[in-house]
């Protein structure tokens, strides 16, 4: 019986080690696993979805670079617990997907490698990125990764219901240009269709609230953060929360749906506009090509958040390939990583089919991209999509705090002014203890 306990130790000795001659490249990413469908696929043009496209890209890179042993590590979104643990154990991958909003945290601790020289060498200098993508990877004037995409929350519109509500003109949806117009149009929508104007995943989910809050404060030219501290208790903050509180109070939105229920709800025609991000464009577009269902027969379009206040702006974030610092990365391995980045940049236009916005301005300007469904409407986001400034660290936990508090205000659990001051206080506590 005791021998059984020695079994694990024996197994350790027999663990396989990689072939010593091949250069090993460890690429770590989220986006899920789709082995069954794309395990061996290399045709990037035929792949669908985030998982499919990135898997085929990596497979194709491996096929075209037989001297590199590519190890693809798929992790549960967003993978930061693992990455942090790996960095602490000095065992980080060579390339990893990271949100733009999180880069400054890792960069400030010296955990990432700057890539300016490499990006220039592979023909993808920061000047070739969109404004939003460039902002996402630049800290202190240097570039810390290759942007993959920019994603933003969007207004996904059920055109069939909009038509019924009389909110379509010239084949385009009529969108409000101020909060008052929004209330009026929402009222009209409800009267003519019997459904709420908005579909929102409001339960067990806080990011949506944060994105809405940030977006509408930005639209009012409000300042969210000043000198590394949060400034939420402002008239702009108030207006942003009041907007959604009014929508909630007047039943212009679905309630109590979690993310999955909201997706299902929109697909079933629960409301006119679904507030969710770029990643759903493909799914909804596919539904609109069917002949049955709420979005059938082309009953879908998507627009950026309408300009309800002073200027057009939408809060955005994005995905980036970054290279964690490592003491024992050999030059050959580093070179292989850069080779992959070059390959990815070269095939970046395929990533656009996920619905996310391309990171390269050239792709945005290309007719090929514009021809993709609904992308014409979204082109403006290349300039109006706005991430938070890089000086703001701990953006993920801040997002949770802002979202939870905003949710309380909107549902009426807490008065708006107290919410804003609580939000500010809690976020500043995080920022003070960096």
């Amino acid at each position: 019986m005791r021998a059984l306990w020695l079994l694990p130790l024996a197994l350790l000795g027999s663990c396989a080690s990689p072939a010593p001659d091949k250069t090993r490249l460890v690429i770590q990413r989220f986006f899920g696993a789709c082995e069954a469908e794309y395990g061996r696929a290399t045709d990037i043009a035929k792949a669908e979805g985030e998982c499919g496209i990135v898997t085929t890209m990596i497979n194709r890179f491996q096929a075209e670079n037989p001297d590199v042993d590519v190890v693809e590590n798929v992790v549960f979104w967003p993978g930061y617990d693992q990455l942090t643990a790996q960095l602490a154990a000095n065992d980080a991958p060579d390339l990893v997907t990271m949100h733009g909003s999180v880069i400054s945290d890792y960069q400030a601790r010296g955990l990432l490698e700057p890539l300016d020289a490499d990006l220039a060498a592979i023909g993808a200098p920061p000047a070739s990125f969109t404004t939003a993508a460039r902002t996402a990877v630049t800290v202190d004037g240097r570039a810390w990764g290759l942007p993959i995409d920019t994603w933003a929350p969007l207004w996904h519109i059920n055109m069939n219901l909009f038509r019924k509500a009389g909110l379509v003109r010239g084949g385009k949806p009529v969108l409000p240009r101020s909060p008052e117009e929004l209330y009026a149009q929402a009222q009209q929508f409800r009267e003519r269709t019997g459904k709420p104007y908005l579909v929102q995943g409001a339960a067990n989910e806080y990011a949506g609230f944060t994105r809405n809050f940030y977006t509408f404060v930005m639209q009012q030219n409000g300042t969210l953060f000043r000198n590394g501290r949060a400034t939420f208790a402002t008239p702009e903050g108030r207006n942003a929360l009041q907007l959604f509180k009014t929508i909630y109070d007047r039943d212009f939105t679905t309630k109590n749906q979690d993310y999955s229920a909201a997706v299902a709800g929109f697909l079933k025609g629960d409301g006119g506009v679904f507030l969710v991000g770029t990643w759903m464009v493909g799914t909804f577009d596919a539904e609109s090509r069917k002949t049955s269902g709420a979005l059938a027969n082309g009953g879908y379009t998507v627009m950026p958040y309408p300009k309800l206040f002073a200027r057009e702006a939408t809060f955005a974030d994005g995905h980036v390939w970054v290279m964690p610092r490592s003491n024992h990365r050999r030059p050959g391995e580093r070179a292989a990583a850069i080779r992959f980045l070059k390959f990815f940049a070269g095939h970046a236009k395929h990533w656009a089919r996920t619905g996310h916005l391309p990171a390269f301005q050239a792709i945005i300007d290309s007719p090929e991209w514009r021809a993709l469904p609904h992308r014409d409407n979204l082109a403006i986001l290349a300039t109006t999509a706005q991430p938070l400034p890089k000086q703001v660290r701990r953006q993920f936990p801040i997002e949770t705090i802002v979202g939870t508090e905003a949710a309380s205000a909107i549902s009426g659990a807490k008065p708006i002014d107290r919410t804003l001051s609580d939000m500010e206080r809690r976020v500043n506590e995080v920022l003070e203890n960096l």
Partner: protein
Amino acid sequence: MTRSRLAVALVVLAAVLMLVPLLWVLALSLKANGELMVDTASVFNGRFTLENYRNLFGNGAVFRWIGNSLIVSLGMTVGVLILASLAGYGFARLEFRGRDALFVIVLLGLAVPEQAVIIARHQMFSWLGMHNTYQALILPGLSAPFGVFLMTQYFRAIPKDIDEAALLDGASRFTIFWKLLLPLTIPAQATLGIFTFLSAWNDYWWPLISATNKDMFTLTVGIASTQMNFAQTEGLGFLMAQAVFAGAPMLIVYLFFQKYIVQAVAGAAGR
């Protein structure tokens, strides 16, 4: 000992309530993801498919994950049974200096939450360069005081005359332990075995931060990594298939051990 019909009826009713979510998991696992994304109630329309299970086995990594989980869970179970039985006997039956104080210290260990030690453990294994090994996954679990607590209680409950009789016959302490008392604790061993195996099998956080290379993923970590998005919208059926698949070995282990827990009432050896 007879039991009232009412109690049994209540238990059966409770069992039905317990069963409903379980059956639902099974039903969801047999539905196409696309259908479920539009409407989870589509599980009632009777169109079932095995595509989720097919996709599961299409991912070759699943077998690697199961292999890792099996090694870790079995290793930890065997290790805990050995260490806890030895220590339980020592604390229950043998007198040595500091025994009671040591036992109290072990008991205090029961109160230590995983959060208070997980980071330090991670650092220790980092210093030794031992992450991504089976040892790193097994060793922390061996320190859990629950097993020692349980076995000590069981050994204490065994009447001492058995020991006395054997001692008079000149048997060594170890022989008494190995030949006489250990067999009498089989229900406790089976219980401890089941729960150690279960806690190792379903452990998530420690394998997440220690076994970060995909070759070392355990089943829980591996399954989590396949989810396309954090809200599990797109692959609900697939996720349920994975859940059924992950839970099945545990259920088999339970079925195997539970007959040791409840031995036949009729004709059982009295103690």
